[in-house]
């Protein structure tokens, strides 16, 4: 019985579709399929590139994160000459020109491009000595710290913590220090047999820190756990410096000579102008990198908008075409209704064809965009270490396609209903 009813149903549609298929305009449908496909390819590829390149742009190879830049004051020739002379004469050096005053910081904070300003914490009132016997290094050093949120990859490192009981101090040094060690210091002491050190080799090496002040002295073990290209300073955990200043410091609050500034729009030309006017120095690499990220974002956004416009036009185009088909074949639709075909049956072929074309177009677009993703992945992998994760764009596209097809079906049904009801 079921088989019988299915056969009858097929027969109904066989003749009905024979009639309705002649009402379609193939060129318009092909046009719709192509424009929809192109629009979806552009939108998917743009999204894929944006998502895939994002980790590369965000990748924090430096321990100092990408969310802030270090700004200091320019040291003028006059202040260094007179400062040097005074120093040689045993006079106190006037260093006031390198510090940021409260007023300067306050004005800086009020600038429209500034999101936030943070400070370095400096070791003050005690001396620090570093001993690395394997390298024959016995030297005075200094420590500074910055809030943890500005530290990038170092956050993942279990060693980056201060525990008073363990007496262990993790240290981050500028990358250039290692170059000086390998190419300068080691070269000048060839006879001492100082080895050439890689970044990883240094991280395995342990040293000793001695803190000396009027109050007393204390020894600690230390280890270099990371390198930075952005900060010309020796960084230790903020907690340690707070502890050390409290226990060995002179209680004087150090004045800020460096600021960590977060910009809300690093692309703003006002930044460079402001820094120049106030004779503030910045690592230009930071600004250039941030500019690059912003240019990428704007470009992707524009392409995204263009693709959306293309898709919108193709949708409008097919809806207009469908409407045109219905208006052109008004008599056929009305006659079908008059001889006993219901709205469901009359609209079925139109719904199947338009939904089918939409689905196929978007599926082809998905395949092509996936192919494009594979091509650029191969190209990028020669330049960067890139791991493409499975992204949810395909599931999202499928969901949007289904929603979109549903809307088209509602449109078709509504239009036919309007025609046959009047």
């Amino acid at each position, binding site marked *: 019985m079921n088989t019988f009813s299915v056969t009858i149903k097929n027969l*109904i549609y*066989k003749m009905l579709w024979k*009639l309705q298929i002649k009402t379609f305009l193939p060129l318009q449908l092909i046009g719709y399929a192509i424009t929809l496909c192109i629009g979806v390819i552009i939108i998917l590829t743009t999204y894929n590139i944006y998502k895939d390149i994002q980790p590369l742009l965000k990748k924090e190879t430096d321990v100092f994160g990408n969310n802030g830049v270090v700004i200091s004051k320019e040291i003028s020739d006059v202040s260094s000459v007179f400062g040097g002379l005074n120093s040689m004469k045993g006079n106190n050096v006037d260093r006031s020109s390198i510090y940021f005053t409260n007023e300067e910081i306050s004005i800086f904070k009020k600038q429209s491009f500034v999101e936030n300003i943070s400070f370095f914490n400096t070791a003050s009132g005690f001396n620090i000595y570093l001993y690395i016997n394997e390298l024959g290094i016995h030297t005075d050093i200094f420590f500074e710290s910055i809030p943890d949120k500005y530290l990038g990859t170092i956050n993942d490192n279990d060693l980056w913590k201060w525990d008073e009981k363990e007496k262990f101090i993790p240290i981050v040094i500028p990358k250039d220090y290692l170059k000086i060690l390998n190419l300068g210091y080691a070269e000048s002491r060839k006879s001492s047999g100082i080895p050439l050190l890689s970044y990883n080799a240094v991280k395995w090496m342990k040293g000793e820190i001695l803190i000396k002040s009027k109050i007393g002295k204390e020894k600690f073990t230390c280890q270099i756990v990371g390198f930075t290209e952005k900060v010309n300073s020796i960084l230790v955990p903020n907690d340690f410096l707070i502890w050390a200043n409290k226990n060995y410091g002179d209680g004087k609050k150090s004045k800020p000579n460096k600021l960590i500034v977060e910009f809300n729009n690093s692309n703003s030309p006002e930044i460079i102008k402001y820094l120049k006017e106030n004779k503030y120095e910045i690592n230009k690499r930071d600004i250039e990198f941030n500019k690059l990220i912003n240019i990428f974002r704007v470009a992707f956004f524009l392409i995204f908008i263009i693709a959306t416009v293309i898709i919108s036009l193709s949708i409008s185009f097919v809806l207009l075409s469908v409407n045109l088909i219905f208006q052109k074949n008004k008599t056929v639709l009305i*006659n079908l209704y*008059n001889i*006993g075909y219901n709205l469901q049956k009359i609209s079925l072929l139109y719904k199947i064809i338009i939904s089918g074309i939409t689905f196929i177009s978007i599926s082809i677009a998905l395949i092509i965009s996936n192919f494009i993703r594979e091509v650029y992945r191969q190209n990028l992998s020669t330049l960067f270490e890139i791991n493409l994760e499975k992204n949810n764009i395909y599931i999202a596209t499928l969901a949007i396609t289904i929603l979109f097809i549903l809307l088209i079906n509602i449109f078709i049904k509504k239009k036919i209903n309007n025609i046959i009801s009047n």
Partner: protein
Amino acid sequence: MSESEISDSDIYLKETIRLESNNNYLFKANSGNGKSSILNFIYQCNQNYNGSIIYDGIEYKNSIDIRNNYISYVFQDFKLFNNLSVWDNIKIKNNLTSHKTDNEISKLLKEIGLHEKKNSLIKELSIGQRQRTAIVRALCQPFKFLLLDEPFSNLDEDNISIITEILNKELKNQKAGLIVTTLNNEYLFSYNKKFNL
């Protein structure tokens, strides 16, 4: 006026007109007096009327069921599909109802002299041939009433005679009523009631 004939004033003044299957009715009037409108109201393809039309105690609106099982209609303008053949035009209705076999349809086409033209497109046929196609199509469904709107306006005497015989036979088989509008030819069927509009 005989008892079976209702005057034009009667049809509009009466609160209810009751039509019964197994009876034949004639709506008679000059052109433009609303003969087709009455049939369209009954068939529900025109709903611009006041009042109600009730079938077996139920008021239907836009009922496809009525069109496929209770009322069949030969439209004055035939409502055929020009891009389909005679055969396809009939099948497009019969596929919906499965009322007649292909052999029965072929037999009907032979009887009305259209078998040779069964594969011709409607647009290639004369008005008379189109009218005959529409009549065969109307027979491809079960019905309690058959509505004929000027059914023989384009047919010759021979064809009228053949078709009248086919229709009478089908009406008898289905125990259905007939509602005809016509300007003339009122002698072709025996009517239980005539309405002058």
